[in-house]
């Protein structure tokens, strides 16, 4: 399952729809806090990758990364940052980065590094 953490409703729903259309299972959260609550009931094996926005209310992407890395149960889940800020790549040099506006091809190829290809027959 892919976890999408994005506060902008249109972007969040769109990402979840597109990934769903590709055949992936998707979990969506609108901020870091909501995502951590969801992850409490799941293990690292349930989530193949987390797609993370940075600027969010309640709990930002920066804070989420701090929490996730300090929790041994979640630390091994790969994270991909989605941001329009060039500086974001420089803040997290060890985390893959997809620049907004997101190129669909780039996003799908990045996701494919950690998530098994969706079952054949999924519509594009």
């Amino acid at each position: 399952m892919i976890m999408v953490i994005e506060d902008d409703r249109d972007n969040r729903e769109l990402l979840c729809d597109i990934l769903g259309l590709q055949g992936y299972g998707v979990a969506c959260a609108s901020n870091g806090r909501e995502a951590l609550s969801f992850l409490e009931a799941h293990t690292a094996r349930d989530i193949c990758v987390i797609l993370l926005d940075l600027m969010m209310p309640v709990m930002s992407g920066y804070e989420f990364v701090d929490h996730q890395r300090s929790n041994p149960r979640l630390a091994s889940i790969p994270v991909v940052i989605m941001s329009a800020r060039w500086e974001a790549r420089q803040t997290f040099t060890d985390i893959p980065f997809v620049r907004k506006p997101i190129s669909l091809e780039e996003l799908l190829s990045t996701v494919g590094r950690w998530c098994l290809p969706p079952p054949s027959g999924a519509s594009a």
Partner: protein
Amino acid sequence: MDTSSAQPPPFVRSLEHLLDFVDTASTGLHWVGADGTILWANPADYEPLGYRADEYIGHNITEFHAGREVITDILARLTAGERIHAYEARLRCKDGAIRHVQITSSVLFEEGDGGRRFVHTRCYTHDVTERKRIEQARDRFVSILGHDLRNPLNAITMAAVQLRRSPSLRDVDARMVERITRSAERMSRMVTDLIEFARGLGARMPLRRELTNFGEVCHHIVEETRHAYPSVDLQTHSEGELSGYWDRDRVAQAVSNLVVNAVQHGSPPVRVMVRDGGDAIVLEVTNRGLPIANEALSDLFEPFSRTTGTDGLGLGLFIVSEIVGAHGGTIDVQSDADSTRFVSRWPRGGGQQ
């Protein structure tokens, strides 16, 4: 010791006149001894921090600095005979608040039998707290604005790209989707340029240099541009050793601005050529089309220059020249009836990581 000030100007009739002058100055002035003790200061130096003269003079300067490493560095440089100019520091007020200052200072040395003697520093403190506050508010505003404008643009672009993938789309609909994508990308580029411009006002562009292959960056940008402009003939050519120490993201941004500028304002084919130029690499972006008027060429790299069209804000080439300049490089443009060519040189920055 500098003897030019040994004789006071004739209009200074007494020492009191000089003291009155420095006591009423709006710039903070102080002397510090070799051990860091404040020997003398004018009110503009200690009053903004909330102290009285007796709470400040006679104390060690390090007590008033919020960053110990900063004052340690300043004192070390001064002791070594260096003159510091507009060195940024943070001072702690009596109530705990922080004031941002720029310090300009040098040491008065006296030559004697025992060698050179540190007499005192000559420090001028310029308070920039208000300017810092405005800069921080501006950065916050720009950041929030950028975030809020980009989110809907991102959704428009992604939705359009997903629609384009649909096999049942009619040709006429596909063209509509193409226009949505292109317009959203143009808007997105304008937002990025505007934010870059607002952030960079009055500031030196920070760079994060890393070992980068310039050819690979160009190739990536050309591929990205092909997605946005599938019908444009875009050609790339690279030759020679193209590695160096540059800020990869900034280079990508500059190349992208140059390529999109050529696509939007020129005629195809657009050629992107990058080659080994010895201690620098040379990037040439060429397009065909109408030449740029001679009188417009000189303003091309100025902000809000819209001499080549009205598709954008006129910031793209300005940002390119800022990025090239920050890397110590140069950029030039040649335009004639045959083609328009932007030639930039990017020093490899060996060792500057």
